[in-house]
C-alpha cells in the first residue's frame, strides 16, 4: 500500500519575544522565494495547508507559516496561567521579524489574513524595505466592530463553540462544506481567551487610518485581497484603505468570505496564482 504524505514539515524554534523565551511552531513546504504566511485571529498556521500542498505554489515558493505565541502548537510563555493574553501591534511586529530572521528568510513575500492583513499595513509603514511584497487578505486600516468580544471568554460560554459560531458567518455560503468545518474546527481548538486577545489588537490597538500615507509601494508593493462575503472587513473597507495608499492594488474575490485560503482553496488559488506569478516575474527582473 502506498501511503500518502503531505509535503509539509513542522518544527519548533526557540526565540525571545517581549523579553521572554518562546517555543514557536512553524510549518513549511516548497522551495524558492520565501512566502511567509500569517494566520487569522484565534487560529493557527494550519489555515495555509492547502497552499503548502499546491505544487503550482510550492514549485516556486518556500511557503512558511508559524503559529503566533499562544496559538496552535506554539506554547504560551511560562507563567501564562496568571496572565490575560493581549496582542499588541509592537508584539506582533516583533514576532514576525524575529521568526523571519530566526529562519533566515531574506526579504520574504509576506501574506497575512485578517489580523495578518492588518499587520502587513504596519509592516509596510515601518519596515517595507525588509519585504519583497506584502499581501493583505481582508486588510483594512480600520473596520467597524460587529459583536461584543466579551462573549469570547467567559466561564458560562464554551470558548471553542462561541469562537466558531461567531466566525461561521464570515465564510461564504459557496465554500465547500468540508473546508467550512475544517476552518471552524481550528477556531474550536483555540486556547481560552486567545481569540479575544487578538481582537484587542484588531479593534483597539491598530487603527491605522491616520498613518496610511507612510506606506511607499515603490519600496514594497502592496496587494489587498478581500472576499465579497466578508462583512467584517468588507471590500469597501479595503477599497477605502487602498484609496489612501498610492500604488496599492485591490482584488475583490468572488464567492469567498474572510478565510480565503482555508474556506475555499480552489477558488482562492484562481486569484492568488496570477498574483504570485506577477511577484515572481518582478523578482526575476
Amino acid at each position, binding site marked *: 500500500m502506498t501511503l500518502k504524505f503531505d509535503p509539509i514539515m513542522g518544527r519548533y524554534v526557540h526565540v525571545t519575544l517581549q523579553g521572554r523565551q518562546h517555543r514557536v511552531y512553524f510549518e513549511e513546504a516548497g522551495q524558492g522565494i520565501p512566502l511567509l504566511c500569517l494566520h487569522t485571529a484565534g487560529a493557527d498556521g494550519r489555515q495555509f495547508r492547502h497552499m503548502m500542498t499546491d505544487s503550482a505554489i510550492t514549485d516556486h515558493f518556500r511557503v512558511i507559516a508559524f503559529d503566533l505565541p499562544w496559538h496552535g502548537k506554539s506554547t504560551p510563555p511560562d507563567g501564562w496561567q496568571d496572565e490575560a493574553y493581549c496582542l499588541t501591534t509592537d508584539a506582533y511586529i516583533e514576532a514576525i521579524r524575529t521568526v523571519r530572521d530566526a529562519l533566515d528568510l531574506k526579504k520574504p513575500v509576506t501574506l497575512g489574513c485578517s489580523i495578518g492583513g492588518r499587520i502587513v499595513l504596519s509592516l509596510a509603514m515601518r519596515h517595507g524595505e525588509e519585504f519583497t511584497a506584502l499581501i493583505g487578505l481582508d486588510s483594512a486600516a480600520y473596520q467597524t466592530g*460587529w459583536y461584543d468580544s466579551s462573549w469570547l471568554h467567559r466561564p*458560562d460560554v*464554551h470558548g471553542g463553540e462561541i469562537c466558531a*459560531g461567531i466566525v*461561521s*458567518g464570515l465564510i*461564504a*455560503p459557496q465554500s465547500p462544506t468540508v473546508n467550512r468545518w475544517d476552518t471552524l474546527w481550528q477556531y474550536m481548538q483555540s486556547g481560552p481567551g486567545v481569540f479575544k486577545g487578538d481582537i484587542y489588537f484588531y479593534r483597539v490597538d491598530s487603527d491605522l487610518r491616520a498613518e496610511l500615507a507612510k506606506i511607499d509601494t515603490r519600496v514594497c508593493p502592496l496587494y489587498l485581497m478581500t472576499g465579497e462575503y466578508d462583512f467584517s472587513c468588507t471590500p469597501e473597507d479595503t477599497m477605502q484603505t487602498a484609496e489612501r495608499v498610492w500604488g496599492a492594488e485591490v482584488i475583490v474575490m468572488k464567492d469567498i468570505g474572510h478565510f480565503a485560503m482555508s474556506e475555499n482553496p480552489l477558488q482562492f488559488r484562481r486569484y492568488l496564482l496570477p498574483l504570485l506569478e506577477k511577484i515572481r516575474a518582478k523578482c526575476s527582473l
Partner: protein
Amino acid sequence: MSKDGAFASSLAGVVERLPELVNGDVPLVRRGEFLTADFMIEVGSRAHYVAIVNGRIATLVPGPLLMRSWSFAIRGSEDAWRQFWRPLPPPHFHDIFALAKRGEFRIEGDFRPLMTNLLYFKALLAAPRALKREAHQ
C-alpha cells in the same frame, strides 16, 4: 389578497415550516440537546413565538400573543428575511450578524441562550434555505 399581502403570508408559511425542518435534522437536534429556551422571530410585523425543548421545536405559535415572554427576539423586514432565506443569499445578507451590522436585523433581549448555542441558532434560522419555494426565490 394584495400582492404584498400574499408575499407576507408566504413568508409566514416559511416560518411555520421550521418545526419540520429542525426536528427532522438529527445532527441539528443533537447540537441543541442541552438547549431549552423561548425566542421570538419577527418577519416584518408578524411575530412567531418558538419554544425549544432539548434542541427540538416543541411549539411555534404565530402572534400577536398578549403577555408572551421570550428570552431573545430577532427582528427583520420581510425583504431582509427573504434575502437571508434565498438558497444562495447575496453577500452580507447571508448571516444574522451580517444583517445586524447592516441594521437590517435587530437582535434584542437576553443574548445568553443565543450565544451559548450560536451554531445551533444560526443553523435553525437558516434552515428555510433548504426550501425551494416561490416566496423566497
